[in-house]
Each structure stands twice: as C-alpha cells, then as structure tokens.
C-alpha cells in the first residue's frame, strides 16, 4: 500500500498554503472571504467533478468551456428571443448541454475517435454555434429571483457552494463506492478486459460524457446568474483550468487512477492560491506562474512517494 497518497500530499500542501497566506494577509483567513472564494470556484469545481470521471475513464473533454458558452447563450435566447418562461428556458438550455455531451460520447464510442481529438473538434464546433446563435448580442435583465442561484445565499452560505457540496458528495460516492464507479476505473485501466467482463463500456462512456455536458450546463446557468448577463465568449479557456485542477488532484491522465476528493482539494488549492496571493499583493500574472509550479511540483512529489512505496 502507498505510504503517502497523493490526496494526503495535497491536503498537506493546502494546509501549508492556507497557513502561509493567512500569515501574509489578515484579510485572507476570514469566513467572509473563504465563503466568497467558494462562490467563485463553484463553476470550475462543478465541471471538475465530472472531468474526474472522464479522465479516470482514460478520456478527456476539451469541449466543456464551449458547452458552457453555448448553454449560457441558449439560456438567454430561449428566454428572451424564443420567449420561454425562464425556468423552462433553463431546463431547455441544460438539456442542450446534455445533448452536446452525448454527442461527444457518441462520436467517441461509435467511431472510436480518440476523445482528445473528438472534443478538440467540438470545442470549436460548440463555441462556433454559440457565437453564431448569439450574433454577438448579449442577453440581460433577468428577474431578481434568478440571481439567488449565483449571487444569493442560503443559511449564510453562497447558494452555488451548497450545489457544489452536494454534487461533490454525490460524485465521490458514485466514483468511489458504486458499480458505475468500478466500471469507470475498469474501463480507464483496461477497456478491453472491461468489455470482456460484460461491463457495458460504451454505455458507461456515453453516460460520463453526457454528465460532463450536464455539469458544464449547470455551471453555466450558475455563472449567468452570478454575472447577470450572457455572452457567447463565456467559459473560454475553462477546459484548461478544470483539467489543471483535476490533474493537480492526482487523477492519472492515463486513466484508471484518481479520486473526487483529490479533485476537490485541487480546486480548493488553486482558488486559495489565486485569492491568497492576490491579497498578499502578488499580481495576477505572478499567481499564474505559482500555480504552474505547484502543479508540476505536486505531481513530482507524489510520483516520488509512489516510487518509494510500491515499486
């Protein structure tokens, strides 16, 4: 067994980071600020949860950012131009997100296109659809109640943080303890053997990519509610932030290894660095550099530990 799991390494790293940052600025380690950070990291966090499944199953989904943008735009278009009632518009937009995810899964399973290539294509495609549909118009003026999701609080905690927490628990249970999770790991480390064991490989993969679309969509709705407007360029570059968080969380990019807890820690660590460094007077560009180093370093460490522990 491993002496020191990657998750442990991360937890320690996070603790250290929090300590240092708290020492740097007395405004960092306050309930207010931390909760606020929770609000800011919710979108990336949600997408990262499912991206963990995707990567554990030895896949990757580069199109999340574009689905995010597409759903945001459609939400606005359905509501304003099509004239649906907002709740319906939300549902409809999310459905489209799921379909977009399914399409990814379909191309991957049906035509055996490597996920990276398939989603590279849909990355452009979905973003293009978003821009084409939006015709560069942004939709604004949503009713107040809608902002509860992105700007409101429940029991003093940002709404989306609750959403994130719930999904995080659900996701970690599914991946860690459910038959579906087992299937995901099996597929990730040897898809052929999984198929030969009667595991429904294609169906599982379809489900995973659909879930990826779903979660991107939900994140998009939350985001629109947070910034109270929609634009076709929303979510640009989201995929890299998400993948960084997941990989930092110890999920093996080759599949078969990784946990949701790790991902959550990864997301939190990144957010803590972004915020804490800013508060300690480090500029945005400096922060990016630090995150880059932390990513590489953390993987190096846990690799060394794994090397020593189980040959």
């Amino acid at each position, binding site marked *: 067994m491993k002496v020191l799991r990657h998750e442990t390494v991360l937890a320690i790293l996070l603790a250290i980071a929090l300590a240092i940052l708290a020492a740097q600025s007395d405004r960092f380690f306050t309930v207010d600020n931390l909760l606020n950070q929770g609000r800011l990291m919710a979108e990336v966090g949600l997408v990262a949860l499912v991206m963990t499944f995707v990567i554990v199953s030895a896949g990757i989904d580069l199109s999340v950012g574009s689905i995010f943008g597409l759903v945001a735009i459609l939400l606005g278009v359905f509501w304003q131009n099509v004239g649906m009632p907002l709740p319906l518009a939300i549902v409809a937009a999310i459905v489209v997100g799921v379909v977009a995810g399914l399409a990814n899964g379909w191309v991957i399973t049906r035509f055996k296109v490597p996920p990276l290539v398939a989603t590279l294509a849909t990355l452009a495609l979905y973003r293009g659809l978003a821009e084409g549909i939006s015709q560069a118009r942004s939709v604004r003026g949503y009713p107040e109640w809608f902002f509860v999701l992105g700007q409101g609080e429940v029991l003093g905690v940002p709404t989306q943080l609750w959403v994130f927490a719930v999904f995080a628990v659900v996701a970690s249970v599914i991946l860690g303890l*459910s*038959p579906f999770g*087992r299937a995901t790991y*099996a597929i990730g480390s*040897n898809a052929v*053997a999984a198929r030969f064991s*009667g*595991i429904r490989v294609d169906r599982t993969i379809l489900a995973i990519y659909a879930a990826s679309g779903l979660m991107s969509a939900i994140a998009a709705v939350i985001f629109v509610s947070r910034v109270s407007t929609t634009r076709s360029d929303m979510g640009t570059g989201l995929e890299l932030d998400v993948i960084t968080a997941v990989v930092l969380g110890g999920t093996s990019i080759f599949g*078969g290894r990784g946990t949701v807890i790790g991902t959550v820690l990864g997301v939190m660590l990144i957010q803590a660095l972004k915020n804490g460094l800013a508060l300690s007077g480090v500029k945005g560009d400096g922060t990016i550099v630090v995150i880059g180093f932390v990513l590489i370093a953390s993987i190096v460490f846990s690799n060394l530990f794994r090397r020593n522990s189980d*040959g």
Partner: protein
Amino acid sequence: MQRTVEAASPGGTPSGGGDGAPLLELSGMTKSFSGVTVLEDVSFDVRAGEVHALLGENGAGKSTLIKIAAGVHRPDRGSIRIGGREVSFASPRDARAGGIAVVYQELLLFPELTVAENIFIGHGPRTAAGTLDWRRMRERARELLDDLDSQHLDVDARVGGLSVANRQRVEIAKALSQDARVLIMDEPTASLAEADVQQLIQIVRTLRQRGVGIAYVSHKLPEVFALADRVTVLRDGRLVGTEPIAAMDERKVVSMMVGRSIDQLFPKVPTRLGEVMLEARGVCHAGVVRDVSFQLRAGEILGIAGLVGSGRTELALTLFGLTPATSGEILVGGSPVAVTSPDQARELGIAYVPEDRGLQGLVKPQTIAENIAHTMLERLRRGFLVDRARETALARHFIEALGIRARGPGQVVGQLSGGNQQKVVLAKWLAIEPRILIMDEPTRGIDVGAKSEIHALMSKLASEGLAILMISSELPEVLGMSDRVLVMNGGRVVAEFDGSEATQEAVGQAMTLTHQRGAA
C-alpha cells in the same frame, strides 16, 4: 509437410552439446525488485551449436534471468562472460553488440510500423549517405522471412494487423537479422498452434546447425525434449540443477520444477452427461465463422482443435456476443436466444475465459477482489453501492477454492505469476455461477504445475455439471481433457471425434487434410 510431434524422443542432433568456452556465461546472478529477491545465485551458460532449455514454474525467474542476459535488467550481483571475456551490459544495445539476440515472451513489436522496419529497427541497412536503405531493408527482410519459410508474410504489412503466429515469426526474423551468435527465446511457442510449433522447431534446429547457441524457455515439455541438448531448471529464483537431456525424463523435470511429482497431467474423469446446455445451429459471423453447428451438454468438456486463424476464438467471441452472429441460431438450455453483447451472454450464464489473459482477461493494476467483482458489479450492488464485505468474501472464497497463491484479496493482480493470474480470470467467471464455460487457450504460457491444477479444476467443474467448451492449440491438452473433439478450419467445423477415437494422428490429419481441401 505436417510433422507429428516427436514428444519425448530424446536429444537433438549429436552435433549438440558443443565444447570449448561457452558463448555466453552467466554466473552467480542475483536480482531483486524493490526488496523482493527473484533470482539468487543462478548460473547459466550457452555453448555454440547447442539448445539449452531453461525451465521453471511461472515466476521462477526465467524471464528475469533472460532480461539480464539481454541487458534490460542489471544484476545486483554476478558476472556475465561472452566467449570467456567478462562484460557488463549498460543497455540492450551492448548485449546486441555482444551478439546476443532475444525473442521476448511478450512480443515486443511496433504495431504501426511495417514488418520490414520492425525487423531492422535500430540497425537498418544504411546508404552511403548514412540514411536508411529501404530497398535493401525490404530485400533482406524478405530473405530472412523466406529462411523461416514464411513466404506468405508481406514485408510491407503493418505488424498491428498480423496474427499472433505471424508476429512471432517477425520477432524471430528480428533476432536473426542481427546474425546473433546467441539466440534467447522466451516461450516462443506459447501462443502458436501445433503446425507453427513444428515449423519453429525446424528453424531452431537449422540455427543450431549453423553453430548458433540457443537458450530456450518453454513450459511445453514435448518440444523441450524434441530440441534441447541440456536442461536447466529454476525454482523460486534458485538453481535446481543443470542436466544433459539424456539424463532426464518428463517426470523428473516436472518434479524438479515444482518440488513434488505431479500425479497426473490430464486428470479428466469421464462424467455422466446431462441435457444439452448450449447448441449452435448454422452459426455464422462475417467470413471467420461459417455455418458452425454443435451441441454441448452439461458435464461435458467439448474440445476445439484447429490451426491458428482457424476461427476458434472468433467462434467463441460470437457465442459470447462480442461479435454477434450474423446468421444462424444459438440455443441455451434448449430455448433460442439472441446474444448481442457480453452482458447478455453473462445473464444467460455463459462465461468466457479469453485467450489473451493480460489484454482481455484482467485489469492488472487492480486487486484480485476488484477484478473478480467486474463480472459481478450488478449482483454485488446493495442499494446504490458495491457491497465491499461481500466482494472481499467472494475473493477470499475463490483464493481458497482455486488455490490462488496470493497475499490476499487486496493484492494487485499484476504481481501474480501467469498461472495464478489465469486462476483469477477463472474465478471472476465462476463467480457468476455459469451454466456454460468457454475457455480459450486455458493454459497458454502456464507452467506444468499450475496447468495440471487448472486441468483438475476443469474436470471437477464438469463433474459438477458445468458445460465446458475448451479451445486449445495444444493437441495433447485437447486430447487429454475432452469428452468430444471438434476440429475447426477456415471458420468451419470440419470433423468431430469422440474422446476415445480422438488420437494425435486422427485429429492432426483431419486438420491438415480438410485444410488442404479448404485451400483448394
């Protein structure tokens, strides 16, 4: 040109057992992986013009010893001599420079590259300008393959599309391309059908005539006795002994290998046959399975013999729903069923132990318990979750029942030896309590000890009423274990024998004769 097996006919040509300084001499080899000692003070040498067989159970350390000789692993202790001169290999390149070529157990080829390039990768013929000389590369590849009379092999074909047997040929050609003085072969016949084995034996003999020294690892004793001049046996990483072949017989070798004597190799006890469990009526798949019909009864072991590429695996895949039948009818327990996916097959009580353990059978980085659970995910479900307790219990039960040598349910499968890995595959399918068990090459690459245990298991299961369909390229196994024998060729069932009337000659002949007809 089919030759019958010269099982147990002692000795190779007298030219063997060449004298003078050994071409390759390994002495006092000790090697451990992350604390685990897998070789301890082993000595082994190869002389010019001899075949020196290296035997031992799975995990005995044969491949490791070979990888040391090939410069892949560095020994912790011990010395390597070539022609009496002490050397040390920093990399496989050094070993090759020293005239040592290896045909590895897990064929190490480049699927995307052509046959010719696979043969010459790293030492291709150069033009004056120092660039690769493709024309000469292809010519020489052609010559080498013709030497191995594999005229049919296209030097421009992508290796990824070749059959196991053909990949094997490419590997050997690759080894010969470096006109090595020492050729090491690690289980070269593990995945070959009889005909190809015979061919390989011929090749090895020819090489020996040319004065090449050959180290030969195999679990198949007949071919060892047909080829070897000397035999060295390892057990648990230690040297048990080195003897001239003349001084040995199968029993002695086996007892040296497993440290006890194996009472019986093919312990099939005839059982009372129950009703028909599985029936195929004119089953076809694409071009590879053609109009196959047969009946399989409870308690019966139905063996399928055939040459490589004869479509036995394809038949199994069709029955198991991986490549659904394009026409024909499959009946399970007398009622017609449509099997279009493995999970359907599983629900029908059909289990399939595939031919490629590593690729199709197991998820090596996962534990024994997890691997067994793969066929049972739905049944182990409690609420939304996998019942860990039952999962572990299940694994414990089978480790017990099948005598899997492992630290426990939590041990990673990749660390087990071949035989025990095969038992885990068997376990994960017995877990579903199948009515029909299809076993494809059930003992491929498995040592005699583990082999006889698996055979014992098979006949026990049969006697408990399981219907077993056994595909094997090892004729003795087919003959020894089957109640009935089907012979397949070109995707067709071309002959059927009752256990009693099935003999080496009859079956072998049926295979080739029909094969000739099929060709014409």
